[in-house]
């Protein structure tokens, strides 16, 4: 019983992490049609700089973590916005080329991070409480999982509100469909797209800092590890559907936990089979919009 509970709650925690990465990915894909392979790099650079700043301010305390998170979000947003501004924008409406640019960017940046911070993981300190556990029904749940779950929920709520309640949401959705017509309605659509990237980048940045808490290290490959799962949950959830991504994140992570534990470490295999199965039955994913 406590094992099952442990699996479920740690699964939720992992799912939260997946979602933090996937939210930006899903936003950027869903709204701009850009399959962003550089998303992992946004996450990694945010984690590195967040860590560099956080540890100088106050290493291993809540205060330090908060600073890291803020810095991470800002860095993520800035890097993502710059990517959109300097690279993606020049290829508007050429989605394959845009995706390719991000592939190139991912290649180059991971190598660059290795050059700067080395190939070894750098272990990070974190607040005392996060290293402890809380006992629920006999299962000792590591506390950082709770932090992850709360942050993911906040991000989900925040982005959904943004899209529903602001005019930007509307502009962005229309701009995806027919960019030049939005311009012809007198709207500077480019700014909105940069904003989408910035928001996605900020979410990735937060994900990066939290991932370094979860894994206990930062490394040049932090992002690439998470990216593939983020892709999978984005697709299973239905491209462009944030709630879908959230649900899929939880499903995938919990499924993965159970398969890893009970089916001899086949978590990855089960997840990709699930991906194929979902797409074959529902090509648009769980919550994908009827195009």
């Amino acid at each position, binding site marked *: 019983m406590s094992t099952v509970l442990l699996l479920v709650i740690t699964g939720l925690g992992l799912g939260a992490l997946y979602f933090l990465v996937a939210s930006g990915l899903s936003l950027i894909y869903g709204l701009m049609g850009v399959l962003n392979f550089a998303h992992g790099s946004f996450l990694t650079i945010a984690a590195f700089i967040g860590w560099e700043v956080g540890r100088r301010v106050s290493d291993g305390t809540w205060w330090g973590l908060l600073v890291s998170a803020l810095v991470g979000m800002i860095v993520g947003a800035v890097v993502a916005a710059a990517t959109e501004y300097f690279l993606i924008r020049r290829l508007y409406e050429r989605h394959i080329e845009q995706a390719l640019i991000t592939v190139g960017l991912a290649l180059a940046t991971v190598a660059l991070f290795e050059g700067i911070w080395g190939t070894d993981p750098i272990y990070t300190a974190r607040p005392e409480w996060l290293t402890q556990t809380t006992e629920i029904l006999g299962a000792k749940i590591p506390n950082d999982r709770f932090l992850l779950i709360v942050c993911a929920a906040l991000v989900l709520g925040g982005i959904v509100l943004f899209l529903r309640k602001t*005019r930007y949401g*509307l*502009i962005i*959705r*229309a701009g995806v*469909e*027919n960019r*030049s*017509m*939005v*311009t*012809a*309605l*007198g*709207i*500077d*659509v480019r700014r909105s797209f940069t904003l989408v990237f910035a928001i996605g980048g900020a979410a990735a940045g937060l994900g990066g800092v939290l991932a370094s808490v979860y894994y206990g290290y930062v490394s040049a490959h932090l992002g690439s590890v998470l990216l593939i799962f983020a892709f999978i949950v984005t697709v299973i959830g239905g491209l462009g559907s944030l709630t879908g991504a959230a649900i899929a994140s939880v499903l995938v992570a919990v499924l993965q936990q159970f398969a890893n534990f009970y089916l001899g470490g086949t978590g990855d295999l089960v997840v990709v089979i699930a991906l194929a199965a979902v797409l074959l039955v529902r090509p648009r994913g769980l919550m994908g*919009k009827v*195009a």
Partner: protein
Amino acid sequence: MSEPILVVDGLNGRIAGQQVVEDISFEVPASGVTALLGRNGVGKTSTIKSILGLIDRTGAVHLGGERIDRLPTHRIVQRGVGYVPEDREIFGSLSVAENLRLAERDDRPRRELIERLFPDIHARRAQRAGTLSGGQQQMVSLARALVNENRLLLVDEPTKGLAPRIVDEVAAALAEAAATVPILLVEQNLHVIRKLAERVVVLSGGRVVFTGSAADLLDDEARIQRYLGVHDATDDRAAPAHAPDHDAATAIPVADTTEELR
């Protein structure tokens, strides 16, 4: 006559590196409907898109005296230009209401006007615009341009694919709009042009070949034949209301017209 609202001087437009509009010059007066005519492929749509900066262009374009040919599209539109594109280009995944809301540029949208002009559209506010019929989509497209207070409307084939009754309605709506805002109208339906247009600009092969009053063109069989290729009575048969005009218009030769514009 007051200052023209739009002055196009030596406009060139290219698509994918190919010249589609060549050295076009004309003016749109500050009131009434100016029709931009020509056969398929002569560059009418491209001219409008060049004015809006939707395709690469060179040459001078002035809107109300201000030079706009270096501005990005959204700035041009923000200066008070409404646009109804040729293929409707509504946002299919958005609802009708969202399409209209998106088009509102200020806090004084003329929603009542839209409701009155297009009751069918109003009734379908919540429908996904992509599922509207072709004609319904055309109305959304028109409504998007009319919802704002504009200084100039660029309207590209608004009656294409509309039922005759709707064509009338659209024409009426445009006529109403024309009372307050000048319109540059691309249109194939000569009846609509007859009804609305005061001046015409005719393109051929990406160049202006005729400029003058609507009557000068429409009442001259030979000119219609020469510029628009209409050479049988098809149009007249369906438009019995119009008796042939024998008004001896002072035909302005093309060369003179061009002169006049310089």
